[in-house]
């Protein structure tokens, strides 16, 4: 009785069908656009991959080691070198570089879109009110949901993986940029206005430098979230470290899966430590030989 009442009173919404027909419509009408987009993404990710795989593996390990040394100190550099050698010995080098290329590309795109949106949202309450719920949805929606339409639109490969990754990983860039800029002391921004700074000068000389730490924390988050999409990217046929994991899953091969997982962990820790060191810096020059745990050392140096 009650069940009958329910079905009479509450109409069922065919949301699934609507979505499907919307995607169909987009596919029919904008096929050309998506072809271009797909090949553009393939080109970018492909050339990044090519650059990373061009030198001999050990040379690349050395290069990444030096980058880690410059940005984050010798401890992180040591970990980077040992970790990457371990990856080579697991036979995952090529997959790891594919993943790195995808993560880098996704991060760059996510930041290029996310940071400007964050800046605008920080300055306009109206924009913020619109952006916030969209960010919530983007972050809580299971990533697979983005994957299906993008695969439909772009076909299998790096394209759908990248787009799904960007949508999923972008919210922290927006949120933390917004937060960082809103946290810049009012006095300081007012001072810039009082001395006749243009809005652009205020942004580049005051607001961005003073929110850099927070924005870098956002960059770190974006990279970590991109990495977490790697397995899903593997499902979409983007290759990389996700592939062995997915393969292991479908063949119920614990070993293959685990090896892929370990590779992801190594890359994740490496990227995390390097970008976190960036977030810690007080906007000064990168520190060369710091003692690993850099948090707060700047303050103590100041007192000495």
């Amino acid at each position, binding site marked *: 009785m009650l069940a009958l009442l329910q079905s009479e009173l509450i109409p069922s919404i065919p949301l699934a069908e609507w979505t499907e027909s919307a995607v169909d419509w987009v596919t029919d009408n904008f096929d050309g656009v998506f072809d271009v987009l797909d090949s553009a993404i393939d080109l970018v990710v492909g050339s990044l991959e090519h650059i990373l795989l061009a030198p001999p593996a050990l040379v690349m390990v050395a290069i990444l080691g030096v980058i880690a040394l410059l940005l984050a100190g010798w401890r992180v550099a040591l970990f980077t070198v040992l970790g990457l050698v371990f990856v080579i010995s697991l036979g995952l080098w090529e997959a790891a570089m594919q993943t790195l290329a995808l993560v880098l590309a996704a991060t760059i795109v996510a930041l290029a879109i996310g940071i400007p949106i964050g800046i605008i949202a920080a300055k306009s309450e109206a924009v913020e009110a619109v952006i916030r719920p969209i960010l919530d949805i983007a972050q809580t929606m299971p990533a697979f949901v983005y994957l299906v339409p993008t695969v439909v639109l772009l076909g299998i490969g790096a394209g759908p993986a990248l787009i799904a990754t960007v949508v999923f990983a972008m919210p922290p860039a927006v949120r933390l940029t917004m937060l960082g800029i809103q946290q810049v*002391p009012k006095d300081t921004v007012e001072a810039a206005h*009082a*001395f*006749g700074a*243009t809005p652009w*000068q205020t942004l580049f*000389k005051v607001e961005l430098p003073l929110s850099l730490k927070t924005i870098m924390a956002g960059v770190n988050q974006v990279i970590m979230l991109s990495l977490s999409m790697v397995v899903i990217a593997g499902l979409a046929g983007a290759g990389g470290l996700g592939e062995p994991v997915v393969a292991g899953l479908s063949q119920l091969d614990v070993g293959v899966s685990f090896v892929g997982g370990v590779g992801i962990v190594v890359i994740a820790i490496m990227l995390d430590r390097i970008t976190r060191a960036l977030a810690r810096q007080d*906007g000064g020059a990168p520190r060369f030989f710091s003692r690993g745990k850099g948090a707060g050392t700047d303050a103590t140096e100041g007192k000495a």
Partner: protein
Amino acid sequence: MIGEQRSGITEAKKQDREQIIRVENCSVVFGRRGQQALQMRRSGKNKAEVEKETGSTIGVYEADFEVERGEIFVIIGLSGSGKSTLLRAINRLIEPTEGEVYLGGEHVSGMSSKQLRELRRKKIGMVFQHFGLLPNRTVLDNISFGLEIQGVPKEQRRKSAEETLDMVGLQGQGEKLITELSGGMKQRVGLARALATEQEILLMDEPFSALDPLIRRDMQNLFLSIQGEVKRTVVFVTHDLDEALTLGHRVAIMKDGEIVQLGTPENILREPANEYVERFVEDVDYAKVRQAESVMVEAKEVAYINEGPTVVLRRMRQAGMSHMFVLDSERRLVGLCEAEEVARLAERDERELRDAVDDGTPKVQRRTPLREVLPLFVEEGDTPVAVVDEDERLEGVIVRGALIAGLTTSAEPNDEGDEDFSGVGARETSGVRPDGGGGE
């Protein structure tokens, strides 16, 4: 020290009474129905009633004043009285709802945002309560911020920044980061930043309120000594009455967005315009307990009646004094002579100083209460007052600045300060703060 600078400024004022800042009928309303709120206020409703009915807050209501070149104009009031809002209306950091602002003859209210930026770059420096410095930059890079905004080449702005650094007493600290500095040092940087662009107007929003009392005193002195050199036109906001009366040539007292009294410090102390001002200043009435000796300083240079005008004039010029007391051979006070008069005699090759001596100059004794000294300054202007003993022998002089400082502070009435204050200081309350002193 304070007295010297002050007489320097009044000197400049006599020559040049040019109005640099003119604020006409300026009102600021926060909230949407600005005009309506002002209408209601005009029809006799008070600020609270207007706020209740329209939801808009009247920040400043019909403020009217001018500031002359080289003047220090102080705006004082409790928190929420609209003093900082009024300050910001001058350079349109807050847009006035009504009324006009003119700076150096330019109509600020009618400017486009581009013109306004140009005006802020070239004409106005500002100092903030919480400094508003860039913590990621060095001291020098902070000081040259205004020049950087103007697009001055790097070499040049470094040079000006270094000069200003010396001015505020931060020599050799240019490469330090802001985070390494104490509050007082930070505000020195804030002051230097505002001075580096060499504008003629300086807006100061409670610049010393965040500092502890001793540092605040130092900063006030530093500010006065710099002001003595650079002679900017200053609008200074504070909630500290001591500060207002010590620094200000004129003081505007604000309440509920309105200027309730505007006048010289003496004026306000002597003739409070209404009950509010009276209550505001009543705690400051040191004039009742203080005596002349607490603010007098030694007369370093004097003239003797038997000296020739040329000799006296030379001595006055060397000491940089516009007035000098004239004594007889037993150090008894004969009167006061003014440099201009002496110069006239010297020109005419007169032998006698007598003609230049004004023997009606006011004199008081060590024990004369400051309350009775004060009117002498109001009547006579800026000439110093002599302190004599029973036999009319000169014991010291009182200058205007030291007197005001003595009226408003409980300690260190003058820099020489070798007199014995015991029994005086103990009875007085320390620093007077209309806010109730919660600002630390």
